[in-house]
């Protein structure tokens, strides 16, 4: 600990104004506060501690703590020795333990089903709205396509760097006889040329 003299000297070096301020306490405390505080503090500590039964009673009421704790009531002679066989003979009443809790479980299940149902319905409605939106866009493209000139389409295709994927041609529903007739009309050289020009071409549902 430093002395007041050292501190005053240090303070004078930093600021003469502050060093010359009166060293007077300004705050006050209620009368007797420091006399009572240790006792109050000890009481508070005892409250927070797990006191044994005797110490707790001694603290609350020394008079009660000094009394004999023996219960003054009496029971008929041999009462406790007879009680056990009587309890064994008496039919035990069956108590239904889960009646209320089962009902609660059903209520909870119903509530969960209702919530899930509501959100499923909400989700379906939203999905329908979204797919209708896509349909509308698709319809709008289909409607717009015939109105475009060939020049506009070819300039778009030239400006698009991505190679256009040729979708596999589905021949579902085409009769085998019809297919043979079509194939007969195409020469070997034409077929070879087509295959060379479209190496990724494939035919689905040939059967």
């Amino acid at each position, binding site marked *: 600990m430093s002395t007041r003299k050292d*501190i005053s000297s240090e303070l004078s070096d*930093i600021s003469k104004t502050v060093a010359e*301020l*009166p060293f007077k306490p300004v*705050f006050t405390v209620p009368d007797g506060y*420091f006399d009572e505080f*240790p006792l109050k503090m*000890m009481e508070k*500590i005892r409250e927070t501690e797990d006191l044994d039964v005797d110490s707790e009673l001694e603290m609350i009421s020394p008079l009660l703590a000094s009394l004999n704790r023996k219960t003054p009531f009496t029971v008929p002679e041999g009462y406790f020795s007879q009680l056990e066989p009587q309890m064994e003979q008496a039919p035990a009443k069956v108590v239904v333990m889960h009646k209320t809790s089962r009902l609660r479980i059903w209520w909870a299940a119903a509530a969960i089903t209702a919530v899930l149902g509501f959100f499923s319905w909400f989700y379906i409605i939203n999905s329908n709205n979204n797919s209708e939106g896509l349909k509308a866009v698709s319809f709008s493209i289909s409607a717009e396509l015939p109105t475009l000139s060939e020049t506009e389409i070819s300039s778009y295709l030239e400006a698009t760097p991505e190679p256009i994927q040729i979708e596999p041609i589905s021949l579902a529903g085409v009769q085998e006889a019809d297919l043979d007739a079509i194939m007969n009309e195409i020469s070997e050289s034409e077929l070879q040329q087509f295959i060379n020009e479209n190496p990724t071409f494939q035919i689905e549902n040939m059967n």
Partner: protein
Amino acid sequence: MANFPDDNELLSLFRESSTKEKGYTLLVKKYQEKLYWHIRRMVVDHENANDVLQNVFIKVWKGLDNFREDARLYTWLYRIATNESITFLEQEKKKSSVSYDDVSSALSEKLVADKDFDASKLEWKLQLAIQKLPEKQKIVFSLRYYDEMSYEEMSKVLETSEGALKASYHHAVKKIEDFILNH
């Protein structure tokens, strides 16, 4: 000041189960005033200082068994009191969602509301100037100016280097001087 047993004797009394309460009560009696005033200068009003002081001594009761004797009891107690005061001010700040500056203003307002407040008296002006200081400077000034604590002890309480504490004290004194001269 009454004569109290030295700290080692207090610790011995506390560690013996039959004299634990006696040792604790003597410790409270020995340090209550110093710790109270340290806390009061930080939180300003009596009710809050009383609450913080009680929390400090509850922590002392719970932690004294584990207290390492290589540290001084005095600095350990001051560290608990300082931390509890800071925690209290932090809680006040959170409760009202205000910044430290606002807490500082609120403390100044409490000071002005004190029944004994007299703006013409230099000692009250000094208290107002202290409340305007940043938290760390306020603590350092209080420990040095009022509690006459050495920088070495203070560095143990605040876990800060002595050099940094000297600088904080210097800044605090200069700010107080500026406040006194301009208000």
